[in-house]
């Protein structure tokens, strides 16, 4: 099976965010594989173990994204592709999905796995957009997948309800937490990853004209929410604290 994972390098979840020049400052930030994409990588490796084939991880990013691709290779992916976005002036999910579609256009693929949402920009658009551009079905927020021949049985999370879906390959799915427990790269895995193929592509290599993938949206401002005043930590004996809280909620906050 030809298994692909689309992966995004994101800010570490625990990072403090600061804004300068109307941009999120990346100085000294730690980056990670988007957590939902880790589930996608894990599932891709599991599918390969069951059905054979190769796992290719693909990202649109800058040269630093090589680190996250190597991590995916160390987990067990076979090869990686870095599509450089450094020639792009503007970028949004339209851009990213169009670039990915240009890459996949002449590839043979059975399944593409991604995360259901990136924890930084968080639109959740790239997966379904890509599926449409490739004219294949998609299933979002999956928590289980089984492939028999070309038939695919999926369980997906729908706001807490569970939906059982039947569909077929080729297919794009996006991972929800609960799909699996991603493995940590092993030491031998990390050693092997250094020698696994990692291809870098420029937009020209994909015959992409920058103007055609120009962002459709524009960010006019990025700002931090107003700092919340330190909350009131109540004191005294518990019964008094409870009385005070009820009174504050009624008379100060006026929410009850």
């Amino acid at each position, binding site marked *: 099976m030809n298994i692909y994972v689309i992966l995004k390098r994101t*800010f570490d*979840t*625990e990072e403090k*965010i600061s804004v300068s020049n109307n941009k*999120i400052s990346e100085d000294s930030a730690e980056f990670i594989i988007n957590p939902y994409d880790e589930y996608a990588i894990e599932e891709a490796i599991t599918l390969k173990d069951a059905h054979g084939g190769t796992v290719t991880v693909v990202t649109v990013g800058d040269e630093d994204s090589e680190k996250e691709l190597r991590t995916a290779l160390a987990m067990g992916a076979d090869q990686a592709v870095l599509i450089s976005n450094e020639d792009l002036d503007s970028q949004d*999910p*339209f851009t990213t*999905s169009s670039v990915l579609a240009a890459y996949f256009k002449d590839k043979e693929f059975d399944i593409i796995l991604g995360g259901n949402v990136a*924890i*930084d920009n*968080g*639109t*959740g*658009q790239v997966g*379904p*957009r890509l599926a*449409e*551009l490739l004219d294949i*079905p*998609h*299933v*979002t*927020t999956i928590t289980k997948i089984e492939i028999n021949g070309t038939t695919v049985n999926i369980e997906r*999370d*729908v*706001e*807490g*309800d*569970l*939906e*059982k879906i*039947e*569909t077929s390959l080729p297919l794009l799915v996006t991972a*929800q*937490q*609960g799909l699996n427990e991603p493995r940590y790269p092993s030491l031998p895995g990390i050693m092997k990853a250094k020698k696994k193929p990692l291809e870098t592509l420029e937009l020209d290599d994909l015959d992409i004209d920058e103007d055609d993938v120009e*962002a*459709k*949206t524009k*960010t*006019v*401002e*990025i*700002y*931090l*929410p107003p700092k*919340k005043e330190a*909350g*009131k*930590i*109540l004191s005294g004996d*518990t*019964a008094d*604290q*409870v009385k005070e*809280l*009820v009174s504050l909620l*009624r008379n100060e*906050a006026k*929410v009850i």
Partner: protein
Amino acid sequence: MAKKVLVLAESRDGSLRNVSFEAIAAAKEISGGGEVFAVLCGESVQSLANDLIHYGADRVLVAENEKLANYTTDGYYQALKQIIDDEKPEAIVFGHTSLGKDLSPRLAARLESGLISDVTGLEQAGENTVFTRPVYSGKAFEKKLINDGLVFVTIRPNNIAPLEKDESRSGEVKSVSVEIKDLRTIVKEVVRKATTGVDLSEAKIIVAGGRGVKSEDGFKPLQELADVLGAAVGASRGACDADYCDYSLQIGQTGKVVTPDLYIACGISGAIQHLAGMSNSKVIVAINKDPEASIFSVADYGIVGDLFEVVPLLTEEFKKVLV
């Protein structure tokens, strides 16, 4: 410039979701005095149409088809695509719900349009509507607009106020027949987990429990408090993973994103993935025995203590004052 705006209405258990009324309010503002029409898809949903008019829609198109009984991406996509081609709206508003998140990017790709997801506020700036949305798990916000062409957005539930219901409003309700060809994904079964009662994403008050609740039984005092307040019960991932409650109660990045007037967090440490789902709540109360727990950093009011002592007392106190 006045715009014609399409709103996709969503129903659940035979009634419309609040987010659909909120979407109409957003659409009104985007329309700048133009027309707002709602689209209702399903098997037999006609009876819901008037409510949409009462909440501000000028017109409702009802697309009934047995293949739309359950949501499938392909079914809804085909129905919406036909309606969009016929009506040529200049803006589209969906809820940022499971359905909206699944369908909107696919349609936007087909329409070659921009899409601003998970909008929590909007304002007019000259000819443009500028949309606010949280990024980085709610640690920052951005204001965005669509450069040109179709304005397509999804709105986060419980953030944009719906218009006052006005039963004297009237408007055209029209059936449209849509042709649904083959569906590439088939829904075999839907296992309903979400408990009945108040929908978490629409609840005004939420009492949420974490791993600190310690057992399934540990949720009982929380439920009692919720009953007194007319609140919904929610949970952290920690509580769900420990099997104290069902995943359908999960709040956070993976679970539901909620914005109630009052959020009472009991025995929840306040991991960033949890905060992503609730930090925009208007008032947050934290009850935790660890004074260093991160949940206190977003709380308006905090009680450092044992939830099994505090919560029952709180229930009694509310009972007294709410009679």
